[in-house]
């Protein structure tokens, strides 16, 4: 029987999308710079023996992963799994530098780059600067250029949309190049375990299993209305994904999500007057940066680090856009500060960030009342 209000589906297979995933990015950088760690389990995390058991794993090399260590695991747990593993405190400044280096390589091929993290990006190479018609050839060339210039390996996935490209890069690691052709999509997706579908997380997996859905095939067999009934908007999306449909563009012009400024104080801030003065200064800097970027925001985030290094961030969202002025931003930031109720604690860092940004398409002129 036909579904009530069924929408026609169309597969757009005209694009060439590559998903690039650096292989164990942080760990590989560290092993490149410290070859002595190459043949042993190696974990990027603060050493739990020095932090008293605190900290989580940022990432680990493939040897450590074989021992069952994965990112976001407690560092203490990783130590139990691999007592001989080397622990290295992450050096994000270095990783950011390497990431920028890799992005520069991407730009030789295309400017349509959507960064997902330091170590992951989508590239739309339908049209590319080198006029390479074969996406597979382009992926190989990119992979080897990245290796030549950085001595790091990556895995690439190629298909006609982001969903499939990401699944492809995940298919063979490390140093893989996987292409999913339109003709192969159906059989590939039917075999795919349900938890590999993006959006199907910890909470959704049990619900899927309850409905007897363990792989793409069972998902495919369910009607759109049934899926929407059980999973709402996710159901709508999954109905399309399992048919190889994902029209999301590679968002290469993604807007900045926040603009913020912070300062660290070697001479810790104690007095109210000092804190107020610094907050006003930061508010002014944020206002200037927002004006320069022609945006305004609704949410002010205050970051405070106390003498004992405990760091607190707290936010306040306004119904209207906060005016890009020192007074207006300071006012909201100070309200947030008052809510912290941490009088008397010495402060080593203050930061103000504006998020929930929108382009500043207009600005109401302000009467010069106070000057």
């Amino acid at each position, binding site marked *: 029987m036909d579904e009530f209000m069924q929408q026609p589906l169309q597969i757009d297979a005209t694009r060439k999308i590559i998903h690039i995933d650096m292989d164990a990015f942080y760990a590989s950088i560290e092993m490149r710079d410290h070859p002595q760690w190459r043949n042993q389990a190696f974990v990027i995390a603060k050493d739990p023996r020095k932090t008293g058991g605190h900290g989580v794993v940022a990432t680990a090399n493939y040897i450590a992963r074989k021992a069952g260590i994965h990112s976001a695991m407690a560092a203490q747990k990783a130590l139990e799994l691999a007592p001989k593993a080397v622990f290295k405190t992450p050096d994000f400044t270095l990783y950011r530098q390497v990431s920028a280096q890799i992005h520069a390589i991407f730009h030789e091929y295309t400017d349509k780059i959507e960064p997902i993290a330091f170590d992951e990006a989508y590239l739309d190479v339908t049209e590319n600067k080198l006029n390479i018609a074969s996406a597979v050839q382009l992926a190989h060339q990119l992979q080897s250029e990245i290796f030549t210039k950085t001595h790091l390996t990556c895995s690439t996935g190629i298909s006609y949309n982001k969903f499939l490209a990401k699944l492809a890069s995940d298919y063979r690691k490390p140093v893989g190049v996987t292409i999913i052709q339109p003709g192969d999509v159906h059989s590939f997706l039917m075999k795919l375990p349900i938890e590999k579908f993006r959006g199907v997380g910890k909470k959704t997996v049990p619900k899927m299993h309850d409905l007897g859905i363990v792989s793409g095939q069972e998902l495919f067999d369910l009607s759109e209305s049934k899926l929407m009934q059980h999973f709402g908007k996710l159901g709508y999306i999954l109905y399309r994904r399992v048919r190889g449909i994902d029209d999301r563009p590679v968002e290469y012009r993604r807007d900045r999500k926040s603009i913020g400024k912070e300062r660290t104080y070697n001479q810790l801030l104690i007095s109210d007057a000092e804190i107020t003065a610094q907050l006003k200064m930061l508010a002014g800097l944020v206002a200037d940066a927002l004006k320069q970027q022609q945006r305004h925001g609704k949410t002010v985030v205050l970051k405070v680090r106390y003498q004992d290094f405990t760091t607190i961030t707290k936010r306040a969202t306004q119904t209207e856009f906060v005016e890009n002025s020192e007074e207006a931003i300071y006012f909201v930031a100070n309200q947030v500060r008052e809510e912290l109720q941490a009088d008397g604690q010495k402060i080593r860092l203050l930061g103000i960030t504006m998020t929930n940004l929108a382009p500043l398409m*207009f600005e*109401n002129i302000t*009467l010069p009342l106070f000057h």
Partner: protein
Amino acid sequence: MKFTINRAVFTAKLNDVLRAISSKTTIPILTGLKIAVSDQDVTLTGSDADITIETVLPSSEESTNLTIEQAGAIVLPARFFSEIVKKLPDKLVTIEVSDGFQAQITSGSAAFTINGQDANNYPHLPEIETKDGVSLAGDVLKEIIGQTVLAVSTQESRPILTGIHLVLADNQLFAVATDSHRLAQRKITLPQAVQERYDVIIPGKSLTELSRMITDSQATVELRIAENQVLFVLGNTMFYSRLLEGNYPETSRLIPETEDTTIELNAAGFLAAIERASLLSHESRNNVVKLSVTAADNTAKITGNSPDVGNVEEAITTTSLSGADLEISFNPDYMKDALRSFGQSEIRLSFTSALRPFTLVPTQDAENFIQLITPVRTY
């Protein structure tokens, strides 16, 4: 304490006092209504610490049907008490506190007992000592408030702008409010010169509440100003408000003295057009309406554009149009508020340039009433 009173008269006065009572006050006892009974009258008091309203019901006034058996005082939970009194069955209501802080409310066949608090714990009203008061016609005061309060700031970041700046000097009353994007200014000539010069900032919220209490039957309102508060006397009702502290910015310099483009039109007709144009702009992230004036062919039009929804264009009927061509964008909400304050009047809009504030004045009385709006810069 015991008295019997006409329920309708009592309810009307109760409603006045309730305007000052908020359930969100920081001082718990202020969620209550104070009832004080003397040999001659019943006084009701409500306050939220910013506004205090006190009203007296004298037994000498026949319509009150007031009979007092025993003097005394009590504070009763305002919300429950008023809801009870409003729903009672009989024409009369008797309120009695015989012992402790419990009040019996009886009317016809209904009898309530509610818990109250000791009236001695209720904050004392500050005494207002002024030599002279100023008498204002009720309708005039109401009009002044209505015409200026719209420009009061709702942002607490500049507390002083949440008030109306009121200056009384010689035989003139001057009121101005601004939230820094618009400004409303009104002047009136007083029938009598005032003895002293007064320069105060009254919270906009207080004046909004006050103006709701001024009814057609309120011929005059007496204004008395003290150090940090103001008292409005409306017959048997006293309305006290805290004043805002600080110096109000000097605003007269902000009103443009020249004009390069002017149009004259009917406020109500233009308001309707702006309301239509803002239907779309409200949907959009840029709540902006643009006015374009072309002198050569004597036309003016407004346009609104919301990329997601669509756009609107409307030719504006003007009675007169002169000066240079102009394209100016503004927030239609500010324009609507300003236009409403003119009612059905013919008004004149004067512009200097696209990024300078512009003004609206009644064509017949340009001197005494002005609305100013700052334009919007679009990118």
